């Protein structure tokens, strides 16, 4: 059994704050939107929690960004090898085939994570999109909704508060679905708790080929 130190402490802290924050934001977001049919808390409380946690996650995002910029790992880990697109596409298909078929018939996971290449091609594309595009978009549109007057300039860039709200809501829907799938995928290690445990300890266990 090989142990790979995949998740450094700052990343783990960021991840768990983000995970809890996301769940809270999704639930309070639902409470704000469905105030007439959900009774978890009052509208005012939901807005207060949503705003506080939103700002915590903005700060958290910058911890992540700062860590990956300072360590220079952002490029290595998150950017797919666009200079060898054919190989990347092939690897992506292989990875998708694994999740759709190989995993059923007992194939080995084609991706073997290392600290410098911890994401498989599908993860790499997904997390790049999420971390570089979707989360910043959610942050910006969230800020516009948090204080439309203060961020009226930003709202104009988007073409109005309606579009900002549309983006924020669509991303809320996406993240709601994503977080479920993400949790499920996290159980697809060599044991159901393997990846989850790794996100606490930092070490990912991997069976060595014999």
């Amino acid at each position: 059994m090989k142990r790979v130190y995949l998740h450094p402490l700052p990343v783990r802290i960021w991840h768990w704050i983000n995970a809890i924050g996301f769940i809270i934001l999704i639930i309070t977001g639902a409470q704000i939107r469905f105030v007439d049919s959900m009774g978890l808390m009052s509208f005012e409380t939901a807005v207060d929690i949503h705003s506080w946690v939103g700002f915590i996650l903005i700060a958290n995002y910058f911890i992540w960004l700062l860590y990956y910029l300072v360590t220079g790992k952002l490029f290595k880990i998150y950017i797919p090898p666009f200079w060898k697109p054919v190989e990347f596409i092939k690897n992506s298909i292989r990875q998708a085939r694994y999740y759709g078929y190989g995993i059923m018939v007992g194939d080995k996971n084609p991706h073997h994570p290392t600290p410098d290449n911890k994401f498989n091609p599908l993860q790499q594309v997904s997390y790049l999109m999420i971390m570089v595009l979707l989360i910043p978009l959610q942050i910006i549109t969230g800020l516009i909704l948090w204080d439309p007057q203060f961020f009226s300039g930003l709202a104009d860039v988007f073409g109005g508060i309606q579009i900002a709200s549309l983006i924020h809501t669509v991303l809320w829907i996406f993240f709601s679905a994503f977080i479920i799938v993400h949790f499920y995928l996290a159980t697809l290690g060599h044991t159901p708790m393997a990846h989850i445990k790794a996100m606490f300890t930092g070490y990912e266990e991997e069976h060595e080929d014999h």
Partner: protein
Amino acid sequence: MRGIFISGIVILCFLISYMIPLKDAISEDVKACLKCHEIKTLQKRLDTGESISLYIDGKKFEKSVHGPMGCSSCHPNINVRNHPKPRKIANKKEYVKEFSPNCLNCHPKDALMKPEVHGIVVKKGEIYCSECHGSHYIGSIKEWKNKASFNEYCMACHKFDMTKTLPSKEKISLKVNEQEIKKSVHGKFQCIVCHSDFSKVKHPIYNFKDKKQYRAEMTKICTKCHTDEKLKKNPAHYALTKTASCIECHGYHGVKPAKVVRALPENQYCLSCHSRAISMKFKNGETLSVQVKESEILKSAHKKLKCTECHREFSTTQHPIRSFESLAEYRAKAKDICNNCHQDAVKKYDISIHAASLKKGNKESPDCLKCHGYHNVSFITKDKMASSELCIRCHRESGKAFEESVHHVAVKQGKQNAPNCSSCHNSHDVLPVNIAKLDNACIKCHKDVKTTHNKWLWNPPLRLTTFVETHFNSTTCASCHTKTQKAIFLTLVDKAKNKTLQEDEVAKALNIDIKALKTKIDPNGDGKIEEKELWQFMSSIKEKTKANLLGKINVLNSSDAHKIESREKSIKDCAYCHSPNAPMKSKLEINREGTKPLRFEVETKALNSLYAIPNIKDFYVLGFTKIQILDVLFFLALIGGIAVPIGHITLRILTAPIRRKRREGK
């Protein structure tokens, strides 16, 4: 001896006199009555202090038409033996009133009613028989009629206090003061010189609607001698005769020369004519009183002004004759008079909804005169309610709503800073409420309003006043500070020009007549814009302009905006608006320059449509205007998110034997 002789002579005379009859025509009862009533000093004193002579001149009575009749014919229950005790009589009128029915014993009422005018006099009962005909010395009417001059004949009745009530309920006096006529310039005239349609045998009856018509008809009498040709020599006077009746200035019977003395002080000179009930007539038939009450001027803010300081084209030597199409045209010009001194106020008024409305023909809309009066221009009062009453005269509903407000309580308490109508709506530049930015009026007094709202209206973690501004931009103060029905008002704005689109601009962009705009927006004409109609209209207008809809929450009925509650009672529950079930209606307003907007009800679900995103870009009420389809998408995503693991796990369970076999090397 001498005494006995004198007494004998007296007794003899008495006996002789008793034996000689007075005259055969006089009946015995008359003689009996005259025994006392021939005493010249016999009189009765009335309660009023007046006295009635009870003396009867026997000879005169003998010659009268009633001479051959006995006293008891007219005084049925009185004779020497049975003379009632003296009674109390209030006054002479009461006396004749009480006595007159006795005449009817011989002169039945039917007969008296036959001559029409006599009939009217009898019926009205203002004058009684004996007042005209006398009591004991009544001569032959025929003889009197022949002998009497015209004036005597007319005055026989018209010296009395007679009145005529017109259909307008106005009363005109028919009493003529003979002395006044004698002193007048017409002193030598007989009545029929002027009243030529009357004579001793002719007394027409005229039915005038009102005093005005009466005066106008009377004026025609004057023009028989005072012809237009003669009057035209003085143009101002001639113009006056066309609008005012002669009698306004010259009187009825006491006609006096109304020469105006130029040396009079200017205001007095003008008032020589204008203190009277004269009026001017417009081409369309409307009339306007040009009477000026000196007492009103003296009480007004203009009391120190001379007439010509306002009426600059007039003087003691100049009186231009002006001609106006209508009262509206006259009043529009009258504004120029005010503008001589009050340029600032007039300039502000000119941009007001009142000016625009007046221009469009709304006669009720105020101009300077409607609020400030003609000559009774009042001082600016410190009584806030009094000055508001002027507005409430027309805006009754708003006035009533204001009475329910905390502001009205403050006014009643006499608080110096309590607002009245003009505090928010201005006095002269009163703008339509949809463009007046009335919230600024609130902020004028409630200066720290942003800070006070920011105490509770903020999003953590930062207490930014811009969050308060967000709400101020999209809702009016009255929306939260009144407990009334609210609505979202959508207005068309040109995003490229950053301005509100006016009705004419919208019509122009759609290439239709302004009158067809209503049908264009609401094609089925049901007064409500359905979702489809709204987006179709937006799609048409966006072909030509960068039009978009902007929303604002306000009270549905603008009068309700006056019902401001105390701070404690205002709405602080965010979910009141930020809920899909918020009790709000939706309206579409197309602005119209200077007047109230064109307003339609909008199907509220239109605000929850996907089409709202490109068409209402800058207005979004969290919760209330949410795009409904996204809720469906959220639940589908949740189901999808759960379905993926479940499906995958199911496949993994189903394929477990394959993996087992492979692990076992089979």
